[in-house]
């Protein structure tokens, strides 16, 4: 009885520790507060330079690039004006076209871009679990009248299997 109570207590303690870890992790992830330069950096990394270099706006390093410096200045000005992130990005899309955004948006057909990888992961995981379950319950073929003693080639094949499975022990 005492052992049961102890076991239950230690189980609850373990659950508590796991809960604590999850809450701490959530706090770590979501409590970040950004200043203006962090916003410039963040938004600048969500856009591409449109000069044709295929680089993230904040990483374009072409001297004399007709776009990157101007775009960075526009970004700083938009943030100084007090525009929120969506408004800033929208302004850039209107001016430079949809290709200025470095990743698909989460609207309309573009949502599919984000959904598919996760769908593949979930579908794959489900598939693997189903396969494992099917394999585990798959009946093994046993000859009628019980297993006969093994001889010859069959015995050799089992020996070979045992060798392979214990290789390196």
């Amino acid at each position, binding site marked *: 009885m005492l052992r049961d109570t102890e076991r239950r207590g230690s189980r609850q303690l373990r659950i508590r520790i796991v809960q604590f870890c999850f809450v701490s*992790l959530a*706090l*770590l*992830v979501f*409590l*970040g507060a950004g200043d203006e330069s962090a916003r410039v950096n963040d938004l600048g*990394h*969500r856009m*591409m330079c449109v000069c044709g*270099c*295929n*680089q*993230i706006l904040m*990483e*374009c*390093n*072409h*001297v*004399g690039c007709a776009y990157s410096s101007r775009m960075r200045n526009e970004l700083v000005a938009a943030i100084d004006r007090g525009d929120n992130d969506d408004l800033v990005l929208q302004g850039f899309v209107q001016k430079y076209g*949809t*290709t*200025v*955004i*470095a*990743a*698909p*948006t989460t609207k*309309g*057909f*573009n949502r599919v*871009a*984000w959904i*598919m*990888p*996760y769908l*593949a*992961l979930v579908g*794959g*995981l489900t*598939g*693997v*679990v189903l*396969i*494992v379950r099917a*394999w*585990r319950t*798959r009946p*093994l073929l046993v000859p009628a009248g019980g297993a006969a003693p093994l001889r010859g080639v069959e015995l050799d094949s089992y020996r070979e299997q045992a060798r*392979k*499975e*214990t*290789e*390196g*022990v």
Partner: protein
Amino acid sequence: MSQIGSFALLLALALSVYSFLAGVLSLVLKGPGSDRLGETARRAGIATCGLVALAATVLVTAAFQNDFSIAYIFHHSNRDLPAPYKFATLWSGQEGSLLFWSLLLSIYGLVLRMRHKTDRRLFAHASVIIAAVQIFFLLLMNFAANPFGIIQGTLPADGAGLNPLLQYPEMVIHPPMLYLGYVGFTVPFAFALGALIMRYPGEKWIHITRRWTMVTWAFLTCGIFLGAHWAYSVLGWGGYWGWDPVENASLMPWLTGTAFLHSVMMQEKRGMLKTWNVWLIFTTFMLSIFGTLLTRSGLVSSVHAFAQSSIGDWFVIFLAIIFSVCLVFYVKNRSHLRSEHRLESLVSRESSFLFNNLLLLVACFTVLWGTLFPKLSELVNGTKITVGPPFFNRVNIPVALLLLLLTGVGPLLAWRKTSFDSLKRNFRWPALGALATGALLVALGMRPWQDMSYVYSLMTIMLSVLVGLTVISEFVRGGLVIRRHTGQNLFASMVHLAHRNTRRYGGYIVHFGVIVIMIGFAGSAFNQDTEKEMSFGDKMNIGSYTLVCQSYTQEDKPNYGSEWAILQVFKNGKQIDTLYPERRFFKASEQNSTIVANRSTLKEDLYVVYEGQNPVTGRPIIKAHLNPLVMWIWIGVWVMIVGTVVALIPNAVPARVVVPARMETAPVGAGD
């Protein structure tokens, strides 16, 4: 000279066709003549190699002789191009790189055909399939992209020059490595398809294929990381991976190839996943071809698709043919691929391989999906969008972290079934080590709550420590058992252990390399950069470094003119180095290129780019990046190569030892 090359390619095509047809007939027809016909097919395949090599030699010789009557040489070389780059002309443009692909394929084919005595019938099937692939590339070169095309009209005095971005020492070895990887996957593909066609009994073909796959995989790994190093050193944006379509093209077959190298063990050991393995290797080969399609066709826009043309249609047709052939033979012979055993537990080595394969394939699918989505979006919405690094990082980093976790867990699971107690026993210390590392990093100033990238970085380092400790504990535990038997010191015992099962312990070394690379990647969350117009005596601060501009200088060389800055590097008030970031102007192509100055240490890279002069003020601009832990990536690659080489060494015959009265406990998860 061009006529010799053209003729060699035409003859090579004829011989390849003969090799294919005679090979097929010798396999289909029964009778005394079929063996002799098969032998002629094999010899025709060998002769093809000689002719393609002749064509390649002609092209390289033309580059060295500045034969600008050949259009390819005119477009990719010039008189003052240094000798190593003249050699690299062979793979610098479309026609040349197709010839180079064909040359490598014929060399792989030569090795395969020379080793035909290992298993005549299986090798004959593989030889026929390689001949079929060779025919495709020779058809392309003879009818769509001839490397020996002649310039009409007046002969130009000098060539247009090689792309400046390609004039860097690594570009002499990066493409060959990458191509050895791409082309090499033809061989396991040929064996897999051949084994399926002939309903090959047993798993011998897997043993033969595994070695080829490992070598190919190692080449592809080297190629990918050499490319990353080249991008880091030449492009000057401070990074090594930009999720560019061409980079993605090389990553996809690497991911499926890695999945195959893991899942193939299940077939060898337990006779399971046969269909899966066959399709994995088919997919890997098709992705290699698809990579070439992406690079060559202009299907997607890329900064380093160095050659584009309309040969994309040829590749689409070729891919459709490959897929159809694979599907037909799979449907016809799928009964041959039934699993021999069942899976007994979800907590077993088999399950870990299944999950590992799943994650690698999801990563591959994500890369493929992201690469092609702009095209799909354009088709559906009519508007083009960009799928850049934010998408790939957000989707792939969690998958990579799960893979990293499995890298630690998988090898400690036993085949068939692992008990929870054994799991707990084996993971207690590595898990505590990982948690302690996390706590230490936070105590040292890592602030994961400030940015999601810091969370990923912290998790990557913690999981890397977990994997590292499990790998080390595997070596130490096995080494201790050997030491007790042999009396050697621990290190010698571990070497002995690795030699007894090279594949398993080589694999662990590869895993160790992977975690070193992952730690290097984790550093990117803390990159810093700054940019300043700097005149003589001006200072720039970045991290704990101060850069002081000493002077600027210029030099004129035959191939290019260059200007560079001389910057003194100070740390804590003491001069520790001088850096020379450079900017080159290539005369023939009239293009600029940067040569980065990099002070690399284990802790961080001080990476300085001379960006040229501000067109308005006329003042030189210096951009400095501080990139932590980048050197770990390059070290990790070397560790992976060492691990692959160890895994390729044949096992030593285990020494006979007297069985002690008390049986020693084998390391958990014994076997591969």
